[in-house]
């Protein structure tokens, strides 16, 4: 990729991050998880952790979403639904793999029912380790995906 195209790509990403930093619609997708990560995502919208103060909200359809938050090791049954969900998100879009199952297949990678981690199916922008990750760790992971983590201490 030549330098001009790379610079354009950088500027595009900066612009997307600028927009997403003000208002981010997150669609959570369970690609075959144990639901531990879902419980922590539930906790994100309560009064204690409150991601709404960052302008992030959880939406009901991938068509409304800017970002897919994928949990679970991708099972064979969930491969096509996950791909169709990803295609349903209008660009620009981001994917964040949450939890050790989504990041690497976790403990279930050798299973006959599991295809693998999320990055074997979709391009992933950030990985959040944890089993399950704390709500604060999820907030950090989304901010890392948005390139906002480095500028937080201002």
């Amino acid at each position, binding site marked *: 990729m030549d330098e001009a195209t790379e610079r354009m790509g950088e500027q595009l990403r900066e612009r997307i991050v600028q927009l997403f930093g003000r208002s981010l619609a997150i669609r959570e997708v369970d690609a075959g998880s144990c639901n531990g990560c879902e419980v922590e995502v539930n906790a994100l919208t309560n009064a204690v952790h409150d991601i709404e103060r960052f302008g992030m909200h959880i939406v009901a359809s991938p068509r409304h979403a800017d970002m897919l938050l994928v949990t679970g090791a991708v099972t064979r049954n969930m491969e096509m639904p996950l791909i169709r969900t990803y295609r349903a998100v209008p660009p620009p879009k981001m994917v964040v793999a949450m939890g050790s199952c989504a990041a*690497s297949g*976790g403990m279930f990678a050798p299973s006959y029912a599991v295809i693998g981690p999320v990055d074997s199916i979709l391009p992933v922008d950030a*990985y959040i380790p944890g089993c399950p990750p704390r709500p604060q760790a999820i907030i950090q992971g989304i901010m890392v995906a948005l390139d906002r983590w480095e500028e937080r201490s201002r």
Partner: protein
Amino acid sequence: MRKLLRRMFGYGSRTVPYPTEAFTPPAAFIGRPEADLDGCDRCGRCAAGCPAGSLSLVDEGLQLDLGSCIFCGECARICPEHIAMGKDFELAARGREELKVVFARG
């Protein structure tokens, strides 16, 4: 009625101001494993006992793959001399390779 309203609005903000302020997890929280390999003889029991296969012995020392770690504490139980479970939870990364942490051999 007035007492109820006073109680409802008397609580104030319950939001934890993360990440504007640093957050200390509770005492029972299990975070990232921390290893001090001073005097480690590379017996490999930690890597053999890890249920998720996250630990492996590499040339530089001990490699921990945070992407597959389930934070169970088994490695710390097997080798309390060199491994302890810390409190670090801010572990997110953009790339898969950044999740592989290497503890240098002592």
